């Protein structure tokens, strides 16, 4: 999991942000949540939500998905759709996590 975070964080730094629009902060929150979870700092997330989050990150980071990321302009549309769907399903958990971030550290 920590490895997934490392790879995803590196990848995310070079990804175009425009296709993700306002869900970008939630995508970043997913990454930080995975890190906090892997490090045992934050475990207050339901397992099925965690699965959704991990799946979305794996999809977004994988360059060879439905629309390969190398395609100009279109390459990240599918990733953005997957992330938006995952945000819809995990919104509450991510909001709770961000609230924890501002309280706890």
């Amino acid at each position, binding site marked *: 999991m920590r490895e997934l975070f490392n790879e995803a*964080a590196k990848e995310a*730094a070079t990804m175009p942000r425009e296709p993700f*629009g*306002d869900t*970008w902060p939630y995508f*970043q929150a997913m990454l930080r949540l995975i*890190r906090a979870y892997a490090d045992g700092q934050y475990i207050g997330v339901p397992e099925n939500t965690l699965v959704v989050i991990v799946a979305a990150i794996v999809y977004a980071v994988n360059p060879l998905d439905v629309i390969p990321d190398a395609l100009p302009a279109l390459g990240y549309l599918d990733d953005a759709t997957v992330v938006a769907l995952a*945000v819809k399903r995990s919104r509450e958990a991510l909001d709770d996590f961000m*609230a924890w971030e501002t309280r706890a550290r």
Partner: protein
Amino acid sequence: MKRKATTLAKRAKGSRTFTNALQRAHTFARNPKALRALFEEATRKVGSLPRAPFKELWGYFQAMLRLIRAYYRGQYRDVSFANFVIIIGAIIYVLDPWDLMPDWIPGVGFLDDATILAFAVQKTRETLDEFMTWESGAA
């Protein structure tokens, strides 16, 4: 509906509450103690704010709070003064219950806050995105 939304955005931006908030933000930006007090007030109040009017901007709102904390702690200062003032001003506005549409009015009390936040995100998105990239690379 769209026109109504833009009118509201204009009125909120031009409101005395927001002008005052930006003025206060100028002094806050140079004062880590004041920033810390603002951050603590925000985290106290944020639990009672309804998230619905802010929609997905909520994620950026949270990023603003974390940026302010990282700034007063001296961990992260990679933000221009002008952008920092807008971010602080937006937070002050959102926390002020007596703004253009007072926050206790059911249903609409936070619509003006949401337009101010949208304006601030539009102006400072790059700063906030870079901050979040820093966050996931720092530890």
